[in-house]
């Protein structure tokens, strides 16, 4: 089939060269990534202590202090976002997998969800700004949470749909044959069978979005202070970890920059920790 004949030596040499390049390339890439993690740990570890979790950032040039409000703020924003995005995505997935299937509407929604996953997160921030911040005339944690929920929604819908599709049809049929109504068969049998996958998908979607910065830049904005109760989070600029790291890192004071490193370390530990624990618990490493 090949008109061109290459000598065996040349083919062997090419093969070896490619293999060497592969090993070197892989080592370089993975070392670089590992190095980033190492640097974050080394520079951030010094900032972690009790006051890091409990106090507000110090004044420029001051000492001590921590990222307490930002940590709590990120937790609140992410949880509110999960409350909005996860159930909606879950039921949308049920529609796609159980009712819509290959119909025209479901196919269209699936395409929209795919495109939605590709929307840059900062554009989602602009959307939340236009929809919520402009109409309420102030920045708020709620707008930030809405932006995060928007990002979570298609991820949850598509992963959950994949998980539901893995459930064999016989299970649905036998549930219905026993006289169970459709909703009971779906929620009680199909979803229970897909429980591990659904949980993994949901948790990973929440965690990934929890580390986002761009959608919060002009929705939640930031703040240095403790918020007074839930009302505070929804009524004005809300402290959050990622934007705080961004702001602190631009400061000329090494103490503040170290706090930023500490924040980055905390985020990495949280994100990777949850990822690892989830994988170990559910033994399903394939979704990501």
């Amino acid at each position, binding site marked *: 089939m090949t008109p061109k004949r290459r000598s065996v030596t040349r083919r062997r040499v090419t093969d070896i060269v490619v293999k060497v*390049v592969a090993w070197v390339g892989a080592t370089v890439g*993975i070392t670089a990534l590992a190095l980033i*993690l190492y640097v974050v740990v080394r520079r951030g570890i010094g900032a972690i202590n009790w006051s890091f979790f409990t106090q507000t950032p110090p004044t420029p040039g001051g000492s001590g202090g921590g990222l307490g409000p930002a940590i709590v703020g990120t937790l609140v924003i992410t949880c509110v976002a999960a409350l909005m995005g996860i159930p*909606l995505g879950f039921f949308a997935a049920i529609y796609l997998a159980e009712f819509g299937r290959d119909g025209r509407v*479901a196919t269209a929604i699936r395409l929209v969800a795919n495109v939605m996953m*590709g929307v840059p997160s900062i554009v989602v921030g*602009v959307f939340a700004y236009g929809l919520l911040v402009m109409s309420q005339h102030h920045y708020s944690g709620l707008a930030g949470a809405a932006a995060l929920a928007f990002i979570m929604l298609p991820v949850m819908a598509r992963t959950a749909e994949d998980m539901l599709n893995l459930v064999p049809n016989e299970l649905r049929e036998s549930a219905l044959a026993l006289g169970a109504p459709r909703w009971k068969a779906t929620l009680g049998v199909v979803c229970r069978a897909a429980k591990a996958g659904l949980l993994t998908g949901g948790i990973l979607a929440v965690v990934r979005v929890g580390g986002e910065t761009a959608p919060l830049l002009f929705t939640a904005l930031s703040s240095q202070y403790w918020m007074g109760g839930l009302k505070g989070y929804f009524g004005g600029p809300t402290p959050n970890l990622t934007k705080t790291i*961004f702001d602190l890192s631009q400061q000329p004071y090494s103490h503040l920059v170290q706090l930023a490193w500490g924040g980055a370390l905390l*985020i990495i530990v949280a994100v990777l920790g949850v990822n690892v624990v989830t994988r170990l618990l559910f033994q399903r490493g394939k979704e990501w």
Partner: protein
Amino acid sequence: MNAPGVPAGPPGAMKVLRRIRHRRYADPAFRAFTTACGMVVALLMAAMFAVLIIDSWPSIKKFGVGFLWSKAWDTTAGHYGAVTALYGTFYTTVIAMVLAVPLALVIALLLVELAPPWLSRIVGTAIELLAAVPSIVFGLWGFLVLVPIMSNHVEPWIQSTFLGKLWLFQGPPMGLGFLTAGLVLALMVLPFITAVARDVLRMVPQVVKEAGYGMGSTTWEVTRKVSLRYGLSGIVGAFFLGLGRALGETMAVAFLIGQTYDMQKSLFGTGNTITSTLANTFAEATDSLQRSALIELGLVLFVITGVFQLLAHLWLRRARRRMGGRA
């Protein structure tokens, strides 16, 4: 008296009847509810498009299509254009893709074909975990660690070699700029593309590869002529996913691009991207026209990434059809 074979007496029958009546409402309600949730996904996307257009309308009205090729970004005179941001966006994206795609393919090849299974499992998991590291971490590292290294060592060294005469490497070695931003972007999309490419290469049936080896092919030949061709549509999909990420990535670029509003040719030059301009100036923008122009930038980015997504989907569908519904 009950008919034989029908054990349910009147009370049982009532129960069944009630259950059926209950089902008559419960099931359609459930179906309607989930359908509504599905519709919300589509509606939100439409709402997003509408909000972006409405809020950028003052800018669209004032600058027209000329917005897309105007170099202006003058907050005092109130003139805005998208060209410098588009230039920076594509410049950094090209750098990132040129660096990341070959490296990702090579790592994927290593994971699937060359490395022993235990190593490949560890490295594969590590790569998947790295894909989950938030971009703020990469940005922080780039800004505080990579920038000094680039400005003190790498960039002066490049300029001291014969490469320094090229226009690509002109200008003061500040560390900030297209090259540094592109480098960090590359590191960020690398795990992502690698993970997808690995899954694609792994899906190539063993038999097909063994047929290649049976013909006397080397590993590289099997990879290039069998695996890559078999998984081409998937690889292209991975490419477009990585491209979309690089185009829309914000934090790494906002830290590193330098935020100037011009179109420098040099890799060491500074500039701005759509995302960096939004991230660095949106919250401070007080003028409503500026804010509107910024939202229009967001709209432009939305359309660009949307078009790429759609192209990727159409390409994939065509490729799939050409391959006879396989893959």
